[in-house]
């Protein structure tokens, strides 16, 4: 897996899982690999994987069945959508607006 350079790896992995939930590749009640399995797959330290899973657990996007593993929560997609929309509006939109102003473009570009 290729990681970009500015975001902590554990967040990039959590984002990757959220993207797969949005695209439907991971559906609610799907089991995701154990920390160790996923770490081996990505070539990433189990500590880092644990931090990704902890973050998703805290946000209620995955849940843990003791002794069985991690599963996608029933309402994971709604939660991820809500959070990603909020982030898009708070971060991406202002950045796009600023860039458009810099380049002398207006909202008409979205019309086609």
């Amino acid at each position, binding site marked *: 897996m290729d990681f970009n350079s500015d975001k*902590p790896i554990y967040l990039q992995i959590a984002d990757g899982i959220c993207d797969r939930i949005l695209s439907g590749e991971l559906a609610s009640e799907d089991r995701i690999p154990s920390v160790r399995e996923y770490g081996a797959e990505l070539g*990433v330290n189990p*500590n880092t994987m644990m931090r990704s899973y902890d973050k998703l657990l805290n946000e209620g996007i995955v849940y843990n069945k003791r002794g069985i593993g991690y599963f996608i929560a029933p309402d994971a997609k709604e939660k991820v959508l809500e959070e990603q929309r909020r982030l898009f509006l708070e971060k991406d939109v202002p950045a796009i607006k600023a860039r458009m102003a810099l380049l002398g473009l207006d909202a008409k570009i979205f019309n086609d």
Partner: protein
Amino acid sequence: MIEINNLAFSFQKYDVLQGISLRLEEGKIYGLLGENGVGKTTLLTLLCGLKSPKSGSISVDGRAPFDRQPSLLQDQFYLPDEVLPLRATAIAFAKERGIFWPRFSMEKFIKIIAEFEVDPNHRMDKMSAGQLKKTWISFALATDARYYYMDEPTNGLDIPSKAQFRKAIMQYTAEDSTLVISTHQVRDLENVIDPIIILDSKEVLVNASIEEIESKLCFDYSKELNPNALYVEQTPAGFVQVYPNDGNSESKVNLEAFFNTIHMHKDVAKSLFGNK
């Protein structure tokens, strides 16, 4: 749990290590970093019992490695930087040596060596340096040891084998095993090693998890220089700069930049990551 207390070692009158204290927890993959000649290899050979401390102590779950008790030896594996090209096929070697590790699995050895694309029927003294290293790595992982001490394991590996190595050390080591990996090739192992130990000639400068490093330092790739930058490095796209984290930001640790920051500011290293 490995506890190193006030360890010292010297070659006759040359002091190599002094006052080293470290605690290594199970289930972790430690990256041992340090400049040439600071004693990384010496520390690994002390940990596995090849050398005896001049003073201070090492305890591996209550046992001193230099006592070389079979119960500890069968639970550990030391992989040196230069490995022996024996006059035997990989498979004969594994059969003969595997018996010293009670959990050694021939099946696992065959599986791992196949993943590294080395022919186990090839004679070790006819192999290339990289093939030989991969044979030893496969053997090491097949012993299912609890303590691994690896000196520059990615040296000599070709590009696909480095990725294979990263996967294999997570796939084939037990969850409660402890790995200590010395390396200069931090890019090879950047996402694998955590915590990070930085050794200096006479002391341990840092023993900290990636999470702790992230919480204390920012690694900034923007184009504006921060006045508090401890370290700045020019890159094709701008800078990498390292400065103290005010507690609000999260960035990806760049191990090369981290090492250089610590190397230039040993005082900062001590105040931020003071020895625990």
